[in-house]
């Protein structure tokens, strides 16, 4: 605390209902979960004065990771039966460390632990939450791209009820999100991808470890029997002003056979689709080049599979 704000108050609700009631005040308090973004601003004396809503005091928000029952029955996969729908639910206060320790999530959603270990070190992973990463809306968030590639939905609760918003619809601009001030992210639901899906997660930073991303790609592809692309997700961090799903490039690829021609077409499409940011961490030119290289690597290695 080299410098501090003088006017900082905290509400510690005991129940979710109390938390949601608190959010109806004017102005609404700011939700505080792991605090690994907010506390940096607090210690630097840059935090907005006001009332903060401490979520750690609410047991309903600390529920353990839930894996829906259908998924456990892995023995039926590939046996000709319908694939179980399967879903993983993270709660508002699920941390990166929780995901790294969870064997089933590591198996079902392998990009999540890969992202988790890139976020700060153990001390940060013990506290920082996936929901906080979503709400903070940094373009450089490392936790958001894999969730978006997995088609996660955000569960938003308010005193008026609960609604689900697709994470890919959650951002509309720099730090602009679909969350209303009276809403709280109470959960994240992630459908388990179809068996045989191929994922790709690569972060490019200034250093190999302990760096904030310059460019990151989380990709997921589902191939059909004749190597046609049934479904593909391409999600970039640190390239656009918010976590960005490259839908135009995805739609160029979907339905096409995965072959060298499709790869170059995709890279060309991406080159015009992205309008990268220029900031303290990198330049637009570098980001565009590396984003295209990552896409090429993802599709190239997938072709080799």
């Amino acid at each position, binding site marked *: 605390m080299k410098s501090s704000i003088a006017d900082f108050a*905290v*509400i510690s609700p*005991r129940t979710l209902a109390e938390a*949601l009631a*608190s959010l109806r005040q004017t102005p609404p308090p700011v939700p505080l979960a*792991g605090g690994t973004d907010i506390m940096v601003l607090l210690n*630097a004396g840059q935090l907005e004065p006001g009332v903060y809503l401490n979520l750690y005091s609410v047991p309903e928000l600390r529920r353990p990771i839930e894996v829906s029952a259908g998924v456990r029955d892995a023995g039926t996969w590939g046996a000709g039966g319908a694939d179980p729908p399967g879903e993983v639910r993270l709660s508002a206060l699920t941390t990166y460390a929780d995901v790294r320790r969870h064997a089933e999530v590591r198996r079902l959603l392998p990009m999540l632990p890969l992202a988790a270990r890139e976020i700060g070190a*153990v*001390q940060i992973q013990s506290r920082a939450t996936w929901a906080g990463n979503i709400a903070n809306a940094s373009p450089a968030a490392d936790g958001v791209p894999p969730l978006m590639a997995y088609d996660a939905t955000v569960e938003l609760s308010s005193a008026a009820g609960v609604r689900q918003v697709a994470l890919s619809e959650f951002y509309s601009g720099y730090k602009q999100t679909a969350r209303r001030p009276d809403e709280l992210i109470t959960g994240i639901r992630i459908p388990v991808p179809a068996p045989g899906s191929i994922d790709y997660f690569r972060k490019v930073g200034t250093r190999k470890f302990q760096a904030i991303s310059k460019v990151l790609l989380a990709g997921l592809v589902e191939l059909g029997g004749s190597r046609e692309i049934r479904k593909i997700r391409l999600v970039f961090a640190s390239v656009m002003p918010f976590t960005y799903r490259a839908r135009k490039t995805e739609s160029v690829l979907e339905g096409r056979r995965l072959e060298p021609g499709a790869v170059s077409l995709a890279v060309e499409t991406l080159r015009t689709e992205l309008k990268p940011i220029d900031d303290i961490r990198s330049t637009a030119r570098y980001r565009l080049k590396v984003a295209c290289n990552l896409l090429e690597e993802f599709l190239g290695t997938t072709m080799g599979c």
Partner: protein
Amino acid sequence: MAAAGAGRVSAEAGEAPEALGPGPVPCALSVNGREVRIEIEPRVTLLRALRHYSDYTGPKEICDRGACGGCTVLLDGKPVASCMMLALDAQGRPITTVEGLARDGKLHPVQEAFKTCDAYQCGYCTPGMLLSTVALLKENPAPSLDEIKRGLEGNLCRCAAYNHIFDAVQMAAKKMSASPAK
């Protein structure tokens, strides 16, 4: 500010509790098995509460932004950056600082190993290194060198005594698996 929402919300929707602060409020921490009662403003971090409002100077303030690991303490047995959380939030949960590692005048095996391997120069990062090591070995009693590096990646040593530190962690792992703590 901080008007409670009482009266504006129905009972079943819950009522907004009063906000605490910005003035001092009571805070009870459990540090190394002892209860510590202090009065702090809600903005006070756990690190500041330990160092300035009680006498636990083991956790160090270095970067004050969750990057260096100097302020590492164990909260519920897990390493956290004490500069990155409010002291109020740590209430009711066991906190271990470096002062809590030695028992009855006897060093913890991890401390012994650091001493034997000369795993420090200035010593400022040492409390954080020790606690991260204790947490790592609890979760992974026989870590590889790579796992040790990963486990300690949040603790920076600007004297760069890393090689001796990694030796010490390996030595501690061997000693502790030979005679597991009760």
